[in-house]
């Protein structure tokens, strides 16, 4: 065997080895029901621009958006997760967290794979950063979801855990059907969605908890791959649309816990959403990629709560931590304790028709 033949042989084996490995690991293609995505613009050359969220992904044929769940197939954008929830739970509404919206009720919570942000501290990264083919979904039509909520006695349906905007069409269809069946709907979101789809969605949403992750654009860029302004726009738009709103801020040590940043955030909430908008400061625990960062010191959370109250917000809570009064609702006028909470447990609720029984002050919320 001469040298050239030997070289050809070596090259052939080297090329064939990975091919054989590929064949060995290939699983049969699964047929999935795809749903045409909305809010898209067709571009020349079979390209599509997705206008659902502020990323405005321009996708060539075969490409998938940042969210991992919207793909251009031959010039048409499809949602890969319509009818494919990967998480289904019947949660207490306090877990969302929503403290001023039908306390003590259960909410059927669901999510599909995917998210349009990539927060390095994500608490649900296993599903939010997953591609649809890497997780095992439950096949469920919107009607089946609503029926399941009815069967489980859920007071509402929550779109939560991952970013619901990425399964916009599925969420909208469920929400619409839920309203027809007199079931409330809740959006738990990072708020990274464009105005048009948001207003369409808002018609079918009763309450929302928006994660305002920080109050600096640099923070959003470095930790989430998103930007701040679109989230602020979403918060204002939801308020305009009449959706009941609560806001959550996960306090991450060294990232967004500067007292001045906290004060600015609280001030913005007061000026733009109203002083009676509930604000939750949540404790960070190391997860996903941010695993060399300590949990938020309890003192930091307490200080954030005090600062936000001083800025004039009426209802400020701390979460993900057991405290004496951080989860309780107090009357902003007479300062009496109105609702006691321990974790997910709602203790005594002293509200009378949404009013403080001691001074008659109307307490903001959907009770």
């Amino acid at each position, binding site marked *: 065997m001469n040298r050239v033949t030997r070289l050809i042989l070596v090259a052939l084996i080297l090329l064939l080895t990975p091919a054989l490995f590929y064949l060995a690991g290939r699983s049969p293609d699964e047929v999935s029901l795809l749903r045409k995505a909305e809010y898209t613009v067709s571009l020349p050359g079979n390209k599509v621009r997705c206008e659902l969220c502020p990323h405005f992904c321009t996708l060539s044929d075969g490409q998938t958006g940042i969210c991992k769940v919207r793909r251009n197939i031959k010039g048409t954008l499809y949602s890969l997760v319509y009818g494919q929830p990967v998480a289904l739970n019947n949660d207490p509404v306090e877990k969302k967290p929503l403290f001023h919206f039908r306390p003590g009720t259960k909410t059927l919570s669901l999510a599909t794979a995917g998210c349009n942000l990539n927060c390095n501290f994500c608490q649900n990264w296993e599903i939010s950063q997953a591609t649809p083919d890497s997780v095992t979904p439950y096949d469920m039509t919107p009607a089946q979801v609503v029926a399941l909520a009815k069967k489980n006695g859920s007071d509402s349906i929550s779109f939560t855990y991952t970013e619901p905007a990425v399964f916009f069409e599925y969420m909208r269809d469920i929400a619409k059907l839920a309203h027809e069946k007199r079931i409330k709907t809740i959006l738990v979101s990072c708020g990274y969605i464009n105005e048009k789809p948001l207003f369409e969605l808002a018609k079918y949403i009763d309450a929302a908890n928006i994660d305002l992750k920080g109050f600096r654009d640099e923070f959003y860029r470095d930790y989430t791959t998103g930007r701040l302004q679109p989230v602020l726009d979403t918060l204002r738009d939801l308020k305009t649309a009449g959706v009941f709103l609560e806001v959550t801020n996960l306090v991450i040590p060294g990232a967004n816990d500067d007292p001045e940043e906290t004060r600015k955030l609280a001030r913005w909430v007061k000026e733009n959403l109203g002083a009676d908008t509930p604000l939750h400061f949540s404790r960070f625990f190391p997860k996903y990629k941010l695993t060399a960062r*300590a949990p938020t010191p309890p003192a930091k959370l307490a200080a954030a709560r005090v600062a936000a109250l001083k800025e004039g917000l009426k209802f400020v809570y701390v979460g993900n931590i057991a405290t004496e009064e951080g989860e309780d609702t107090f009357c902003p006028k007479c300062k009496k304790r109105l609702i006691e909470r321990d*974790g997910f447990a709602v203790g005594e609720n002293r509200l009378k028709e949404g009013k403080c029984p001691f001074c008659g002050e109307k307490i903001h919320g959907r009770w």
Partner: protein
Amino acid sequence: MAGGEVSGKLGRSILFPFLLGLLTALTQTILIRELMIATGAFELVVAVALSLWMLFTGIGSISFRFFPFLQRGKVLPFLLIALSLAAVGQLFLIAPLAASFSPVAGMALSIPAMVAVAALVIIPGCILGGLAFPACVEAARDRREPTGAVYLMESGGMAAGALLFYLFLDLFSPVNYPVYRDHYAARYFPDTLLFSRDGRYGRLDATEREGQRAYFRNGQAAGVAGENRPAEEFAGLVLTQHPAPHRIAVIGGLLSGSAVALAARMPHATITVIEQEPMLFEIYPTDIFGKNVILRSGEPVAVMTALPPQELIIIDLPDPSSVMLSRFFSREFFHFLREHNGPGAVIVVGLSGGRGMLAPETAALNRSVQKALQEVFREVVLVPADHHLWAAADNDFPTADPAVVIERMERNRLNGTWFNGALVQDIFEPMRRQLTTAAVKRAATRENRLLTPAAYFETLRHTARRLGAPLPAVITALPARPLFFFLITGAFATLCAAGIAFFFRRRMAPAQSGAIFCVSGSAFVLQLALMTLLQVQVGQIYHFIALFTVSFMLGTTAGVSVSRMISYSSLLPIAALALLATALLWVADRSLGATGYVALDLIVGLLGGLSIGNLTRNYGKERSSGTAFYVADLAGAALCGLLFGAAILPLYDLRSSIAAAGVLALIGMFAALVMPRGQPGR
């Protein structure tokens, strides 16, 4: 003049290679530990760093011929000084390089970034080390069989370096030096680093901020002192799996806070907290415990054996990200617990969960442990909390009935601000229980056993996905196709041996280089297998790694020395390696004790040294012959170590890894017999 010449030659041929080996062993051990911490404590980095190490050392060795000035003996001391400086400098490179791949302090790197950082950090030292070996051979040209002589001294140096590290860990631990510690502290921004200590099982750091003290194990958050919601939930749920436990043993749980939470809720029970790492009891404020809490450090099987039967045994350890941890989730360990503690005991095992949001890897991890528990216990119950709990027993105590849990919670006064009836109802919510159970049940995986660490494999898969490089379907499909894997990898290893023989045919007889490749590979894979056996059978590893290097290199040194004194066929020691692998297959499931494994490691080194020493005997004194030998040796160890040592073990089992080592030795015999044995280049 004559005396000076003799001592100069002695220095060149003996001292320099010895120093090279010593520096290599020290640098490798220290750097790999630092890299592991900087990249997120992913054990894969050890395999990555070692392979890159060998790759770049090989490249350095091959490059030797492009630097004619290095062939002058006088350059060698400068090369070694440069290597020493690089070793220290490399340490300070890790943090800035890791930071350049991540915008955020303390963030785990993606796997591609991890490989890049490891490569960039390792390059200078490896290239210098790679250049130094043939330079040492060149400097020893006047000696008989210079390559063998240099290899002998380098092996001795490595043994000495590893022994020094083992004996004087504090001296060689960089965090003991304020200059490095200050540099290192930046990774814990915004916290202040209180202290940092290296111990038998890795590094423990403690930080403080705003009155909160946090602990980090190998650079990863492990828990906080004091109030801790997850620990309260864990303790509450665990304690409701037994109606009224009086004797409780917790394996782990100190840093996570569950030991504190358990002690606070059960002041009248005797609680034994078992931690492997003795240093934990020195750094943790153990004075917060009452008299009912007994603290024991040591190997859990040994500690448990000395204890009277316990009623509730809790395993609160991190997910099995290593073979050593995987053993505590294995069928054999569960069997030991049942036998020792009797039918009245309840075992509770904590694992990653997800509150109804299970990733496929997490489901498979849970499934592998569930299967192991079901093999041993009559009752196995899942508590689908944030952290999944598996309660198992040969009695009816374990329960997933929220009413029973709440009744036990109230009777034993376990409820607190977080752990209460609402939380219990949420955790045992019927739909969650049903969906989680179904997700775990349909996960395709094997039962976790000592020699088949399926839980370790699933944890690796989970970590790989977390770090942005999910294992491709081809890898996860391999366990179902063992024959295919062995055929392909066997062909690949043979091809590599042939490739090396072909590449260096002008400097070394193909029979020699091909056999060296296989023998190095076989010996290294056997060494890895023995290390793993030590982990799973005896349970200690970190402080034994250096000792393993010592015994292996001592064996190699002895083997090479013997090979220079007596004549024998190269086939004999290679055949003995194959036989040793076969024998190991038979005794793999029995513990030979730490001494037994270290002794076997020495024998593997001895057989490797006897083979390689003999194979390099007819080496001649051609220029760069050291390069060919060094590359064949390194490539064999790196490639086979990765394929058969690191990859097969989690994919298949330890026996496959040992069998592969035996097959490699047989391929080595085949190479020595069949490949051309003429003078190089002819």
